[in-house]
């Protein structure tokens, strides 16, 4: 029964993707495309998370210096994945976020800093995203995404689901959430004249979140692969973070 339900769900997903209108592009909010008041609002919204994240990183480095390398590893993973612009079945390209892995290992807060570093790099050197929109992009990719990843991971672990499924779901949903939040941010700033925010949201979600769906699955798969490699080669690092108990390693 379960299997047939899964196959039905997979098929309806594929049909949904095929039925969607052609090109759509997805990435972060561009410089100048968010009114100044909203830029300020999102900067203020992400600031506390950045400060808390910074303090958390300091604490990790002080309390568990051996985890420093793994923290840098999580940052490097964000760098690699957010540089990978992958094609999507909607006929356009977007990139994964890579924040899920770090959030699973260290919790959501440190990732707000790591993610914003990658965003800053792209805003300054690549003209992707922007300085004024960095607050908004940080909030979606480096605050909400990791929060979802850490939350889902905590929840699924409690349900005693297999480790790889927990990791997959966390990374996949964190990726999707990032772009749902981006759509919300744009919808809030640009409500449609008739239909308001909700109509705008569906418009932007059609552009951002739908393209992201297959990429979110890819991100989930890649995160599981990297997590597996980590659990083989650096089990002791993971144990110090109590991601899994020694029994499982």
């Amino acid at each position: 029964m379960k299997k047939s339900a899964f196959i039905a769900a997979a098929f309806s997903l594929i049909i949904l993707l095929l039925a969607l209108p052609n090109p759509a592009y997805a990435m972060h909010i561009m410089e100048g495309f968010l009114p100044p008041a909203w830029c300020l609002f999102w900067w203020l919204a992400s600031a506390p998370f950045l400060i808390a994240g910074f303090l958390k990183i300091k604490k990790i480095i002080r309390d568990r210096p051996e985890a420093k390398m793994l923290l840098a590893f999580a940052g490097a993973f964000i760098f690699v994945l957010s540089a990978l612009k992958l094609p999507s079945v909607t006929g356009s390209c977007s990139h994964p976020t890579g924040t899920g892995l770090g959030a699973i290992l260290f919790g959501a807060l440190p990732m707000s800093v790591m993610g914003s570093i990658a965003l800053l790099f792209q805003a300054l050197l690549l003209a992707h995203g922007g300085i004024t929109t960095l607050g908004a992009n940080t909030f979606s990719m480096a605050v909400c995404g990791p929060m979802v990843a850490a939350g889902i991971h905590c929840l699924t672990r409690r349900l005693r689901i297999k480790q790889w499924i927990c990791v997959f779901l966390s990374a996949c949903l964190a990726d999707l959430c990032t772009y749902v939040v981006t759509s919300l941010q744009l919808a809030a700033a640009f409500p449609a004249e008739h239909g308001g925010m909700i109509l705008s949201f569906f418009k932007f979600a059609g552009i951002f979140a739908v393209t992201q769906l297959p990429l979110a699955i890819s991100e989930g798969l890649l995160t599981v692969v990297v997590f597996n490699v980590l659990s083989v080669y650096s089990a002791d690092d993971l144990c110090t973070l109590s991601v899994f108990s020694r029994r499982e390693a």
Partner: protein
Amino acid sequence: MNARRTGIQNIVFLFFAVALAIAPFIIKSGAEFTGADKLAEQAITQLRPDYKPWIKSLWKPPSSEIESLLFTLQAALGAGFIGYYLGSRRSRKKKSHNDRS
């Protein structure tokens, strides 16, 4: 979890990830695959025809070659560190294994 099983899982998952990246070219052959944020910009102009971006990027890569250079640099920095980390952990694990036996 034993290394052999995760190894097999990794190969299968990497295969799926690659398949997901190739599938669009078959399903949507002929699509443009432009990876810009243009459509969101277009949607904004549709919703608010009078909206003008109020600030421009401080610096833009002068050409798509330079842009790909910087993107590659970003990926290379990340991948370089990932390789270094995994290499160092692998040799550390091997060493502690040898010390024990």
